[in-house]
């Protein structure tokens, strides 16, 4: 691999404290919710704490997480809902790495606990994308390079169309194959109680939906949403007192690539590959294909699920084959996005990533109900963000 020698993986990892997920909760994901940012955070935090019988009094530190301030229109917006998360008087930090925030905040919570400084940490990710009128998409202009790129008036669909085209061209993937991801995820979401877009659709529906920027059709994209999701993390000794079914975070990874996305080959996400390698190394996983039972790659677009799975599996252009064979279905060998993913459940940016961690928690602790994947022991959740640039990964074990 071209960049292999540029990367120095964190060495000398000595796990001082094992960190567990002991509770999770989320709000409904909807395109417009009447709740304020504070109310969303309260609801998700309360559900997560209630799920493990804790109160804000038990929490030692709180991490908020949210993507660009521009969506809520609140400057330093991480501070706005501190009361709703029960963080007043406690250590509080807001995590923010663009779209990668949702899983990044779990990494953040992981080292809060693993450092030995705090034994119970509440992580709450929230996003309110409905305030911008007419649509949040316009705000994505502000993530681009102000001198070289703003003038072109780009938005996200625009650059993802380029990336999707590159992905399809390089690995010879057909649009019909990619559309299967939308069909699968929107179908999986039928079983998710908080989902925004559960749908039974066919590949034709996807291909016949309006073209936004070729090759991206409307049904290739996840919606914009309001919502919040929260997770409670605890250290080893405390976790065992709180719950009988802790799910251990055994590996974490985060990796950022260059800002100059125009200078990178978009066909393979090296940052996802390296982030997952960090996590595998930490978790002692040598063959992810064999060992991982359930996958939650970030899927804001249908091709992104495949693109990210390529990175997580370390196999270029491989995921489309698995998808075509039906291996990524809930009863397949590599169940991917059993929750319904961002395409089905919704995409309140930071909360969507945390929703994926919630799903892994529910799958591994056998609480996923109708979405349950058989015999799930090891799961991986991944999010991605910035300028197609950053990946965040957690690997969990029962």
């Amino acid at each position, binding site marked *: 691999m071209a960049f292999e020698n540029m990367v120095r993986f964190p060495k000398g990892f000595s796990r001082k404290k094992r960190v567990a997920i002991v509770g999770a909760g989320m709000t409904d994901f909807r395109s417009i919710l009447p709740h304020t940012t504070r109310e969303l955070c309260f609801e998700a935090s309360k559900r997560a704490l209630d799920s493990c019988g804790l109160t804000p009094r038990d929490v030692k530190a709180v991490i908020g997480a949210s993507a660009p301030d521009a969506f809520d229109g609140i400057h330093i917006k991480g501070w706005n809902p501190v009361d709703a998360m029960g963080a007043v008087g406690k*250590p509080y930090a807001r995590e923010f790495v663009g779209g990668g925030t949702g899983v990044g905040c779990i990494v953040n919570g992981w080292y809060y606990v693993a450092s030995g400084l705090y034994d119970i940490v509440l992580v709450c990710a929230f996003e309110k994308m409905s305030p911008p009128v007419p649509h949040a998409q316009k705000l994505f202009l502000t993530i681009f390079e102000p001198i070289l790129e703003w003038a072109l008036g780009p938005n996200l669909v625009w650059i993802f169309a380029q990336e999707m085209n590159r992905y399809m061209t390089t690995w010879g993937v057909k649009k019909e194959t990619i559309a299967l991801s939308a069909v699968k995820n929107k179908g999986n979401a039928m079983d998710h109680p908080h989902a925004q877009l559960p749908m039974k659709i066919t590949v034709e529906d996807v291909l016949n939906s309006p073209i936004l920027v070729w090759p991206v059709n409307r049904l290739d994209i996840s919606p914009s949403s309001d919502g919040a999701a929260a997770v409670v993390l605890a250290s080893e000794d405390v976790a065992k007192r709180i719950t009988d079914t802790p799910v251990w975070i055994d590996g974490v990874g985060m990796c*950022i690539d260059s800002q100059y996305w125009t200078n990178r080959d978009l066909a393979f996400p090296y940052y996802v590959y390296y982030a997952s390698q960090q996590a595998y190394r930490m978790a002692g996983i040598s063959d992810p294909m064999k060992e991982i039972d359930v996958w939650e790659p970030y899927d804001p677009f249908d091709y992104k699920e495949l693109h990210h799975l390529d990175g997580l599996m370390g196999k270029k252009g491989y995921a489309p084959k698995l998808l075509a064979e039906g291996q990524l279905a809930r009863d397949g060998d590599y169940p991917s996005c059993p929750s319904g993913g961002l395409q089905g459940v919704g995409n309140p940016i930071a909360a969507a990533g945390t929703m994926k961690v919630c799903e892994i928690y529910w799958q591994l602790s056998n609480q996923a109900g109708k979405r349950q994947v058989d015999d799930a022991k090891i799961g991986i959740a991944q999010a991605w963000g910035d300028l197609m640039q950053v990946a965040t990964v957690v690997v969990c074990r029962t």
Partner: protein
Amino acid sequence: MTKAVAIVGLGQTESRALTPTQDFRELIYSAAKKAYDDAGLTPRDVDALLTNEYDFYAGISIADEYTPDQVGARLKFDNLVCNDATIAFINAYMLILSGAADIVAVESNSKVATDVVNYPEVLLAALDPVYNRPLGGHPYYIAGMDMMSYLENSDTTEEQIARVVVKNKGNALLNPNAGFGAKLTVEDVLRSEDAFWPIKLLEIAPLADYAAVVLLAAEEKAKSITDNPVWITGVGHATDSSYIECWPWGEAQWIRNASQEAYKMAGISEPWKEINVVEISEAFAYQELQALEALRISSGSLGNLLEMGTFDLDGSLPVNPSGGCLGMGYTPQATGLQRIVEIALQLRGEAGKRQIPEAEVGVAVGSDSEIIKCGGVVVLSR
């Protein structure tokens, strides 16, 4: 007290009211270059990068997109917190403690002075959109109200608060990186116009551009990298309510909580005896005394101690030898790292003309914003 993580390298740019010739990325690069040179390391040696950034000040959403290239962290572990740089620093500390990384770079920058033309309007957006923002005005009025409460609830006088300005701007004259040094008298400060009554114009730290990079390393690595490591012995961070209606007006409760945590970790039981130097982010002069009170630096009257010269450079407990924010300029999210850099320089004995003799233990306090009661406290020692 454990000595598990140390500062092994630091670099900062000058803190200036205008940097029209440099992009924020160029500022970051020059700070990073100095930090690597200082430690004798290259970007290749670094495991992870921790930064902090506020979108609205950068004028770019997800501004951390633009840091990895300048710090040499491409394809490495990267994280960003939207808080003051002290909290990013504390996060980096925890990342090393967790065992996931050995060497971490912490980066912070400010480009508000040159780039933000409507600063009060942007800051107003930090207030709750339903309850507070409609009140409008320049949000510094909140600090004015806070200072009023502070004056009412303590025996500090306005003259004593003016003395903070005289001291800090005087210290800044000795600091080549400080852009706002001045020789003033208490009368000068009191005669300056009322800005946000009772805050006078000269009691407000002017905005500045700045960038700093600090390199942290785990114990063994630190010892092999440098003969002069500065150890992180205590950290704490905390927040107060974001409902300003429910604030503990006039006091910095968050500093009380954060410093309690940091002192406990550092094994400090009598802060007024054990601490040799303090650096505080004071966007307004009164905040220095408010913070000192919350740091439990003295049981007596802080105002009197200030007048006696206790907090001067040659006093028994120098506060803001760098010049603080009044002397170096207010660099919103980077103020905390500016404070940490100064403490580290003092402990290393590299502070030049403003060097405090035999400084062993220093404390740095950074706050998220001038009107936000949230932030971190870091205890460093030699």
